[in-house]
């Protein structure tokens, strides 16, 4: 039955997170952007409040057991829907702070999907309710391979009970402070995707070090790191999913990377919707205060059309996210829809932020104005988790035979 109503419990969670985003996260937005660091004190405080309570905040996909596991009374999975509803809310509060929340982060889904029971308990077991923030991270991108995931150069060489990792990862969110990273490497470049392996690499493993922390256009409260692996020795027990996983389907490692996207892309898209809504709210108030029914008539119409288009596109983007998440919950293959939501929402959010500044003019460019920050933050939503172009490749390949 088609239904666009949130369940009562979803509404409750949304209200709570909306409150949290407004009262706790938003006041931090400008300050943490300026500080250019992860707001640790805030994170500890919110963990004490029971939000993100030692595990991953609900808004980032669940309770430390990874995304998609929550079920409603009838046993239907709800996790993806819950995640994106909350992702939008927290990103509305601040799109950078949301990425700093403790928890497995983007590392959660691959562990959830392919990790062995033992690996899951080791990886997720670190997220305790002890007030100490801990992170997981996802390290796929390399200096020479981003969109072209199959082209990763980092190598894994088997040596007895260990794998020896060599290579570099870049732009890894929370990678430097993570207790563990899910690191992708290849055992044999000639095998292409079939040679990919994913490893759980714990902080402090000899041969693993952190390179530079990036100075970025936006998302400045979030830490983006370069990771370096020099003869880094990881035990075979840390091969995600164990050897069997790579024996059965030839492309086990690559599939892990791709499957992750089916749930993370709608999530990232939902955050973009949150950003767009945040920018929309600012300009909406600005128009109401300054321009409502004002002359010149032509400008009144320009503004009216702009704000109406913003609202409409945001609503459409949200529905794209909901649909992709609904499919994930229902177990329906959703790669195309996940990519559609991501490509569309990122584009809408970029456009809204651009126009929001345009509408506020010079006032919108001041650092004291939230839209200035959102304009800088939003750009990357069309880049990470697959660029807009990569999403279009995914979509069109599923629409056009033989592409």
């Amino acid at each position: 039955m088609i239904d666009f109503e949130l369940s009562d419990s979803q509404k409750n969670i949304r209200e709570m997170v909306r409150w949290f985003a407004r009262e706790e996260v938003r006041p931090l937005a400008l300050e943490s952007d300026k500080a250019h660091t992860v707001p640790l004190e805030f994170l500890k405080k919110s963990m004490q409040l029971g939000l993100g309570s030692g595990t991953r905040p609900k808004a980032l996909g669940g309770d430390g057991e990874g995304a998609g596991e929550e079920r409603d009374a009838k046993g239907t999975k709800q996790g993806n829907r819950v995640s994106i509803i909350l992702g939008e809310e927290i990103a509305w509060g601040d799109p950078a702070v949301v990425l700093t929340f403790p928890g497995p982060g983007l590392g959660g889904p691959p562990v959830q999907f392919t990790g062995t029971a033992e690996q899951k308990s080791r990886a997720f077991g670190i997220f305790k309710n002890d007030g100490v923030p801990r992170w997981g991270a996802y390290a796929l991108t390399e200096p020479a391979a981003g969109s072209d995931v199959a082209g990763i150069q980092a190598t894994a060489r088997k040596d007895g009970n260990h794998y020896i990792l060599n290579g570099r990862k870049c732009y890894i969110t929370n990678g430097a402070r993570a207790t563990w990273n899910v690191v992708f490497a290849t055992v044999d470049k000639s095998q292409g995707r079939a040679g990919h392996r994913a490893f759980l690499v714990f902080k402090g493993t000899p041969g693993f070090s952190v390179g530079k922390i990036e100075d970025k256009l936006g998302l400045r409260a979030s830490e983006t790191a370069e990771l370096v692996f020099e003869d880094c020795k990881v035990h075979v027990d840390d091969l995600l999913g164990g050897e069997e996983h790579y024996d059965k389907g030839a492309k086990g490692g690559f599939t892990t990377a791709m499957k992750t996207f089916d749930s993370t892309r709608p999530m990232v898209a939902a955050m973009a919707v949150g950003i767009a809504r945040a920018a929309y709210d600012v300009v909406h108030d600005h128009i109401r205060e300054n321009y409502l029914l004002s002359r010149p008539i032509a400008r009144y119409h320009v503004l009216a059309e702009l704000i109406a288009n913003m609202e409409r596109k945001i609503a459409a983007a949200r529905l794209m996210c909901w649909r992709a998440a609904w499919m994930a919950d229902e177990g329906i293959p959703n790669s195309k829809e996940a990519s559609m939501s991501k490509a569309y929402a990122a584009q809408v959010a970029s456009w809204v932020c651009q126009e929001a500044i345009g509408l506020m003019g010079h006032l919108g460019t001041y650092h004291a104005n939230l839209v200035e920050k959102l304009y800088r933050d939003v750009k990357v939503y069309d880049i990470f988790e697959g660029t807009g172009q990569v999403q279009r490749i995914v979509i069109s390949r599923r629409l056009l035979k033989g592409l």
Partner: protein
Amino acid sequence: MISFEPSDDEKEILKTVERFAEVEVRATMRDIEAAGRPPEELRRKYHEMGLGMLNYPETVGGSGMGQVTRALIEEALSFGDPGAAIGLDGPGLAGLAILELGEGAHDERYLAPFAGPDAHLRTAALALLEPKPVADWCSLATHARETAAGYLLDGAKSFVVNGADADFYVVFASFDPAKGWDGLAAFVVEKGTPGVTVTEPILTCGLNGVPIVDLTLDGVVVPKAARLSGRGDFAGGFRRFLARARVVNAARIVGLSRAACEYAIRYAEERTAFGKPIGHHQGLSWMIADIATEVDAARWMVWKAAWEVDHARPSAERASIQALVQANEMAKKVTNDGVQVLGGAGFIRDYPVEKWYRDARTLAFVLGTDPMDNSRAATLTFTSDGESPLDSLSCV
């Protein structure tokens, strides 16, 4: 006869300016950004090259060149860095206001020093915009009142570009919003005038290579002679000033966008993914074709508007708005796609595209907001003589 070929003189100047922009400005744009203004040495060189007073009359020591030449040069400089292009331009948009609204004595007192010794140390700044958006130019909240001593000014101005320690500001204020154009005026407020408070440079999204400040005017008294009355036609002078200022600003927007576009093209040739240069994938090659096209379209609109200004065409005002809107629309797309072409690297400050992305959306508002420009263009579309049936009462 239609031609897109710069004159020999222009080509000559352009060659020098392009070199200067490339070697001296572009190469140091991150330093200029960090310092918040172009260094004195750079300003000296700029003046030695004779760029300071290019389109001012020879009577005040200028070179008497037109708006077209100015547009070419501003574009080239802004290709180097838009903040620097503004920071190096001593009289700035304030100078253009004096040019259109002042009289002989103003020119002598305020413009001529920019051609004199130590001209490179002098700056002037336009104080037009305010902390609250205005319905139209005539309803500026900054208030002027005539007194026995001169004029009394009260109010606040924001986004005063290159205003950190200007020798003077050209402040726009309203006597009486109900009087339309006749209620509006401009005043020169000299450095050190009591009652003027200048903030520290403000952190803005982009355009950080030039200091941008806010002003408050609290019981500021200026002499009668400080008023720029447009030689009897304030509305006409103000609109001509805006037309010139828009052309300069739009040319700068084209310059920085061209920089972003060219950088993206080079990057797309060098970076590979899926076994070939990323620019060879149609998703990017089409995008690149689009942005290169957009840059050109805006560029020709700017040249045409400059030409209309030079020829005092009645449609120059509308052409200038169209050029500015076209340039801003183009810059939004081009600088956004410029970041996109670099992927993750585009988001990192080690690469220049993120800067152009910020600069484009800051430079856009030196003379107002997007909807203001758009609606002004719409309003003018209905008129040939400047009076719109839509809003004949508004000073748009």
